[in-house]
């Protein structure tokens, strides 16, 4: 005998403001299978939950309906309540009166009527609810971190320090990422590489870290707790085991190509390490620009290498790694300013981006830290900065604010004045300096270091003689301004990497319209994703500065540790199940399953005294995510999604439509 208890929640005024909760619980109480019904102001509160527990005991309830908000947040809450009262947690059914009724309707009478229908539906579903038990799976106690910029490095070190093995996969030949390119960091003006390099070395030397550089994740199979990653180790053309990083090869290499790490401002050899502090200190051959690969001749590096480490024939190799959790930290790219033709970035050498200036100011950069114009090597007397190039511009760039440009521009202006006595003007839209120590830093930039901040957009930049002319608006004065300047620095927006979509698809993570990867909940689950066991760190999830990136990376690591330090994990029991006695073996469920969880199997049964072998299907409980596509596709009604069984769904339809 089913004894159903119904608890209607006011959710303060969220539901009770539109729905007559008194009438609702009274009407539902009249249903024949409802043994008890009531309403309460905040059902999710502690007294609310205690009330449910007491009612279960007092009225001997064995199915519970909570008519409240979306199950997304509080289904787990009330399942625990049921378990606390000794009931199987899956005997709970929720009716969503808030998002699906009170928040979207205004007419109280009609909203109450709809609420009654929604709760009736839940009651009829509860009638057919059965106790479910989760299965368990073992967990691989290792993790993988994809990307080894500051986000990946921090996550990897936290994971490794907790005693877990970590596989780190970095696309570039060295770890370090964007932060390695920066000269100073705001608001403290720490030398970026000085605070980063020790961490880079730690990553390469940590006994728990297995580092793959010049490598990419080609495939991620498996499921939470038990992933298999296929890693492509791209041919480096240098044997990493043998190389001692002596540097003879790159010193003697006769080819010279623009150095990508220095934003093309300086040159490097064809066999190279990206920068002096690179980890590992093992060079890589840029095959597109190497004489040996172009002409078949040269091979100087190979001849001179004391360890015989240069290997022109090296090919990409593949390795598989078993891991329990993944942290994705693949970083960001910068907006291409040629999409603003009025700034003429591609026409004048002295119109550069902020990252170019970082390299110019850096002691190991192309100018050895002397600020010189790329065009003629002269020291600029005045530099003009343009903010929001590609940010906050839905026409030419991105609608979002990149969040870091205001501060890095203030840093540039401060540093130029303090160390080089170079004046600057800054065209800005709003100065957003809202974190710890940022506003103070910006104030010093304008007051102490006398940067001239002009609120307005720039309409055109062009050359006149050896000067650059910047035409724009000073919206504070309501006037047009024309500045003569020596160098223009564009604060280009942070954007997703060109291959971000591919990476997200490989990892099974969703992404937004700007191709930033999406967290499971913007406020309450900021480092998790909708792919169980995959976590996010750093700018691959959205623009952020270094402190925020490091905090998120540690958060992602903590979540991953939480997962992989368990011996086993519980699988959600709300998964598909095939009743093989009804399965006709049509196999329609196999191609529709997005998780490859359904497989063909042979079943043997007795039929009229004969042993018959026929085709049916089996569901892998670990792979199944409970989407229900198979049960919708099943023609013979053999496939059932637990918790959403065919008879439950039909009962719900009947309750609403009949």
């Amino acid at each position, binding site marked *: 005998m089913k004894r159903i208890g119904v608890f209607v929640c006011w959710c303060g005024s969220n539901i009770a403001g539109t729905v007559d909760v008194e009438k609702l619980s009274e009407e539902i109480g009249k249903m024949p299978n409802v043994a008890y019904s009531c309403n309460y102001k905040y059902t999710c509160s502690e007294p609310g939950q205690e009330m449910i527990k007491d009612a279960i005991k007092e009225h001997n309830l064995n199915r519970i309906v909570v008519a409240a908000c979306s199950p997304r947040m509080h289904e787990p809450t009330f399942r625990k309540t049921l378990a606390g009262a000794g009931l199987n947690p899956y005997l709970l059914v929720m009716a969503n009166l808030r998002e699906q009724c009170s928040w979207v309707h205004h007419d109280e009478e009609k909203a109450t009527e709809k609420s009654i229908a929604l709760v009736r539906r839940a009651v009829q579903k509860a009638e057919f609810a059965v106790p479910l038990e989760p299965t368990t799976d073992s967990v691989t106690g290792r993790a993988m971190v994809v990307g080894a910029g500051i986000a990946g490095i921090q996550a990897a070190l936290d994971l490794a320090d907790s005693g877990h093995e970590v596989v780190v996969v970095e696309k570039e030949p060295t770890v370090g990422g964007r932060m390695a390119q920066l000269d100073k960091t705001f608001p403290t003006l720490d030398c970026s590489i000085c605070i980063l390099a020790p961490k880079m070395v730690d990553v390469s030397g940590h006994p728990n870290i297995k580092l793959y550089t010049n490598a990419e994740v080609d495939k991620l199979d498996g499921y939470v707790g038990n992933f298999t990653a296929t890693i492509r180790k791209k041919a480096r053309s240098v044997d990493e085991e043998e190389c001692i990083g002596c540097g003879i090869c790159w010193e003697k290499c006769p080819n010279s190509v623009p150095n990508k790490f220095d934003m093309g401002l300086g040159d490097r050899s064809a066999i190279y390490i990206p920068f002096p502090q690179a980890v590992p200190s093992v060079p890589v051959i840029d095959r597109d620009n190497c004489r040996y690969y172009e002409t078949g001749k040269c091979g100087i590096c190979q001849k001179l290498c004391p360890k015989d480490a240069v290997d022109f024939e090296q090919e990409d190799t593949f390795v598989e790694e078993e891991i329990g959790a993944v942290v994705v930290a693949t970083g960001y790219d910068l907006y291409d300013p040629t999409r603003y*033709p*009025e700034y*003429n970035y591609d026409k004048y050498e002295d119109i550069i981006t902020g990252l170019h200036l970082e390299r110019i100011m850096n002691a190991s950069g192309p100018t050895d830290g002397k600020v010189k114009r790329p065009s003629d090597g002269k020291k600029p007397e005045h530099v003009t900065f343009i903010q929001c190039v590609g940010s906050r511009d839905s*026409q030419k760039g991105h609608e979002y604010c990149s969040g870091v440009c205001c501060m890095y521009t203030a840093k540039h202006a401060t540093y130029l004045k303090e160390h080089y006595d170079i004046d600057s003007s800054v065209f800005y839209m709003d100065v957003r300096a809202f974190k710890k120590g940022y506003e103070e830093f910006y104030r010093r930039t304008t007051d102490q270091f006398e940067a001239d901040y002009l609120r307005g957009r720039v309409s*055109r930049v*062009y*050359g*006149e003689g050896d000067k650059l*002319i910047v035409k724009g608006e000073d919206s504070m004065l309501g006037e047009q301004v024309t500045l003569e300047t020596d160098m223009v620095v564009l604060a280009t927006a942070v954007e997703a990497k060109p291959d971000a979509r591919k990476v997200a698809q490989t990892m099974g993570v969703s992404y937004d319209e700007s191709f930033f990867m999406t967290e499971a909940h913007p406020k309450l689950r900021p480092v998790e994703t909708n792919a169980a066991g995959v976590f996010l760190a750093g700018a691959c999830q959205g623009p952020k500065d270094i402190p925020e990136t490091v905090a998120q990376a540690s958060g992602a690591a903590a979540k991953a540790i939480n997962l992989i330090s368990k011996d086993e994990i519980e699988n959600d029991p709300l998964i598909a199940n095939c009743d093989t006695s009804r399965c006709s073996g049509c196999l329609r469920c196999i191609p529709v399953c997005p998780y490859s969880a359904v497989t063909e199997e042979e079943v043997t049964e007795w039929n009229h005294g004969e042993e018959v072998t026929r085709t049916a299907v089996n569901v892998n409980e670990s792979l199944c995510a409970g989407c229900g596509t198979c049960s919708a596709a099943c023609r013979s009604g053999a496939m059932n999604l637990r918790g959403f069984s065919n008879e439950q769904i039909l009962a719900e339809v009947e309750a609403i439509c009949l």
Partner: protein
Amino acid sequence: MKYAYFPGCSLHSMAEEYNMATELVMEDLNVELREIPDWNCCGSTPAHTTSHLLPVALPARNLAIIEKEGLDVVAPCAACYNRFKAANKELNEDDDLKETVNEIIEMDYQANVEVLNLIEVFQNDDVMEILEEKVNVELKNIKPAVYYGCLLTRPPEVTEFDDAENPQSMDQIMEAIGAEPVEWTHKVECCGGSLVMARSEVVLKLSRDILKAAKQAGANCIVTACPLCHANLDMRQEQINKKFGDDFNMPIFYFTQLIGAALGHSKKNLGLKRHFIGSEGLLGSLVG
């Protein structure tokens, strides 16, 4: 090829030479232009500074006449072109406005007429092929700064024509007739427009910037597709010289005038003598 033709007030008055050259060139290129009957003012600047309805209703009446004829329209004046485009956009986005405007003009305009500026007529392979075939005068050493001004490309969501910051289409036409357009900085800067009436000092400064940039880039003339730009740059040059102590002597051409010259038409027929800054020195014996 056949278009409705909306000359607007300028091409029948101060920019008559633009009209003369355009008619000659279009005939050569087998493009038939049919001037629409009983046309009225496009609204220009005064209409949209005084009312919300007037600057839509005035173009709408013209466009309604054209729609009846089943043609698309060519508007060689940049201001007419801009007003027509803007009216079409507003009418297409707002059914209530369309109804009101149709009541005002006592016609039924469905906003289906496509509006082209004169440069767009050349963005047709057939037209360009005929042009390249028929060019018979080599425009040697003619180095125009090709000047688009503001109204042809802006606002980009209204005109949807070329790149708003670095347009190329008129430069390509100039290359096709053998001229050597220069790379320069002030292609889409404002000449001062109709402020020439109220605050001529603004126009003198802005137009001077344009002349200066053209000269610095090595241009020996400026080519335009806008009557107002032409007037400001040509007619005010002497005042600019006087006010700023410059010595500009930069001929300003309508682009169809140079095309006409390349096709072998005479100075007289192209109205080249109507300009304040003479072009005899530059064109010399190239043009008869």
